[in-house]
């Protein structure tokens, strides 16, 4: 399981960097609707994964190392919209998402380290806020 995860991680990082998704200008030009390449990239990735995943699930075959296949599906919740509003804003400003940010310094883009540091901090902040909300609700329920 570890080796498989490592190998897939290597592949993922390789194609992100080889596809130049680690380049601010590439992401920015896509979001300015100047370049269709990245939309095609995403479209091609989904067009490949969607039917194969459907077939894999239909086959009823268990995964090689992780037991019976269980594809994660979520009903629509508030977090999907609220989180994506915040995330999308950061993505637009830095021209990076968690995956491409991680690959950035490896391609020589040193300032990507700041985005990575921000992501770690932001995640920790969100969990602190969520924990606090849970505690306050528990207190409110007691009183």
């Amino acid at each position: 399981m570890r080796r498989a995860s490592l190998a897939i991680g290597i592949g993922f990082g390789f194609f992100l960097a080889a596809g130049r998704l680690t380049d601010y200008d590439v992401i920015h030009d896509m979001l300015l609707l100047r370049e269709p390449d990245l939309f095609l990239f995403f479209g091609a990735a989904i067009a490949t994964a969607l039917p194969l995943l459907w077939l894999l699930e239909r086959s009823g075959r268990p995964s090689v190392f992780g037991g019976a296949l269980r594809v994660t599906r979520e009903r629509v919740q508030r977090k999907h919209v609220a989180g994506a509003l915040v995330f999308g804003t950061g993505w637009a400003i830095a021209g990076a998402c968690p995956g491409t940010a991680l690959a950035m310094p490896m391609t020589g883009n040193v300032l990507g380290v700041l985005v990575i540091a921000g992501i770690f901090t932001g995640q920790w902040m969100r969990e602190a806020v969520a924990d606090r909300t849970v505690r306050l609700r528990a207190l409110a329920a007691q009183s």
Partner: protein
Amino acid sequence: MPWFIAGPAIGLLVVLLYALVNRRLGVSGAYRQVRFLVLGQPITETWRVWFFGGLIAGSLLAAILRGGPVFTLGYGNLAAVLPLALLAPTLLTAGVLIGFGSRWAEGCTSGHGLTGVASRSRGSLVSAMTFWLTALAVTLSLHALTGGVL
């Protein structure tokens, strides 16, 4: 590498991760586990740490094959617009937004946008549409506000 090679390859990796280890491919969740590792807290999903390490190694491999990495303090057009003293806090803040939002939504471009959409997960589809539209709106607004400089 053109999109018609890199895109399907990434799509195949999503399927492969399910076929091999039965997990939703996503990067933001991996940051969380690496934070646990660094802070000495118990790791709840070990595979994510390996995936995180692999991602770094794979991108380095791509850079080496291109004859790099070529180290720079630049950041594309953003570095041309902002001096380093402004660029650095901007990138850090944007990173905080990326981290805060991806943790809140419990997924990012890979977990929701790629894997979730390919799995026909409704929550992921809504999340992906929201961050795509947000990113487009923010980018086009910045473009308009800066008079086309950004």
